[in-house]
């Protein structure tokens, strides 16, 4: 078997990448989660990271967001080094980023509309009435009726919460959006609705998107490019249309969902 191929970082134009990762490493105790990640994401592009459960996809996103601090490496956003930023400097960077969390992470003490408008009211200190109007527009965009605006998150189904999370992620019109497993736990139709929403909203915003998913239908639909994370490294990066015939045994096994292949054998050998 050949070793993991070196990541092909495309987008080698002169414009600096929107997000640029170099040698990012992160471990928890003895558990090495990220082991040298190099990745460029160009402005306006949608990149999807795939990979097995527990391979560190969420950790990767959290490092870029500054919620976790990588042990080593550099993460640049718009050419600015963001590792180690905190306080106001970090807030300034994050003001350009919208994030949909894996579990939606809605504030359960606030009604839906305040959740969506949170970044506008608290982060930007806007007026509540203006923020509410913007929140209603966002809810409308993700296909939720006006009456949910005054519900609390606990009164809604998982799919509705995901959509509220999506509305919150795009409310402040960010130019970078992160989606952590946007379709997990949804029925296939709702999943497709969410995929369409992501494509529509990112295209509309002209935003750069970094998404995580296990769902290949979703990955090929929302991604321009796909990267596969395995054992702390990006073992394959390529155009979304090539993912089903990547020539990489690990990727093949993953995208076809086969039980037997290099991934299981190596996992058992650990």
């Amino acid at each position, binding site marked *: 078997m050949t070793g993991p191929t070196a990541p092909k970082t495309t987008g080698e134009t002169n414009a600096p990448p929107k997000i640029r990762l170099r040698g990012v490493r992160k471990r928890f105790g003895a558990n090495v989660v990220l082991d040298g990640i190099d990745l460029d994401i160009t402005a306006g592009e949608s990149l999807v990271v795939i990979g097995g459960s527990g391979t560190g996809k969420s950790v990767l996103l959290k490092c870029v967001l500054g919620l976790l601090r990588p042990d080593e490496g550099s993460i640049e956003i718009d050419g600015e080094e963001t590792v180690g930023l905190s306080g106001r400097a970090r807030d300034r960077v994050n003001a350009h*980023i919208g994030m949909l969390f894996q579990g939606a992470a*809605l*504030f*359960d003490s606030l009604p839906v509309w305040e959740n969506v408008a949170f*970044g506008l009211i*608290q982060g930007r200190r806007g007026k509540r009435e203006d923020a509410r109007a913007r929140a209603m527009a966002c809810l409308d965009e993700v296909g939720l009726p006006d009456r949910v605006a005054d519900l609390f998150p606990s009164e809604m189904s998982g799919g509705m919460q995901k959509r509220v999370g999506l509305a919150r992620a795009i409310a402040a019109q960010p130019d970078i959006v992160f989606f952590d497993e946007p379709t997990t736990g949804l029925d296939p139709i709702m999943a497709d609705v969410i995929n369409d929403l992501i494509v529509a909203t990112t295209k509309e915003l002209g935003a750069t998107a970094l998404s995580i998913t296990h769902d290949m239908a979703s990955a090929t639909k929302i991604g321009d490019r796909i990267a596969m994370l395995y054992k702390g490294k990006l073992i394959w990066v390529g155009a979304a249309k090539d993912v089903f015939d990547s020539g990489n045994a690990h990727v093949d096994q993953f995208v076809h969902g086969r039980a037997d292949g290099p991934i299981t054998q190596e996992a058992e050998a650990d």
Partner: protein
Amino acid sequence: MNVLAIVGRVFLTFLIQVGRLSIFTGRAVGHMVRPPFYPRLIGRQMVEIGYYSLPVVGLTTIFSGMVLALQSHTGFARFSAEGAVATVVVISITRELGPVLAGLMVAGRIGAAMAAEIGTMRVTEQIDALSTLSTNPFKYLVAPRLIAGVTMLPLLVLVGDVIGVFGGYLIGTTKLGFNPATYIARTAEFLEVIDVVSGLVKAAVFGFVIALMGCYHGYYSKGGAQGVGAATTNAVVSASILILILNYVITELFFAQ
């Protein structure tokens, strides 16, 4: 296993905890005294701590005042000093029982609630979501609770003092045969400002400690429902112990000669 290694590890863990708590406290106080403030959130916490704790604090202090009057009467009767009951009640309540009992009660109510709420927000990534929405969790979650704790506990204790003294008055006048006017005069006669003030200072410190422990344990909770449960217990236990220790320290500072 090597005993020294175990002792060393326990000691290191302890130091790490102390360091983490110190940093947390420093950051929390920094955000507590610097704008911007969140008046709505501060107000909500004040109502939660001040108003909704009134029944619990009122009940504990009134019965403490009553039992204090009964017990001191029996004691002082042995050397014919029953007249001192009113004075003993008011001094014990304002200096010690008011702040300590209110502190312990509020630690159970509010410390636990804060740890559970913030802990749940931690494990469901709501705290991470706050940061991504350019809102500092210390400013938004911790500072309002500390401000409310420090300001509301003294008020609560002041009300508790009055109710406790009233409890003593009830027993004194109905069971122990004091003349109401005499009892009130005796209560006021030997009471000094420092008695009440020291109690209120204690209350402010306890309010800070309760909110700090609730926020700290909630903020660092991990591991789902079990972790939140542990955080809640730790918040109440550590706040209660700290209240009793600090109660001694503050008394020493105020009254040691």
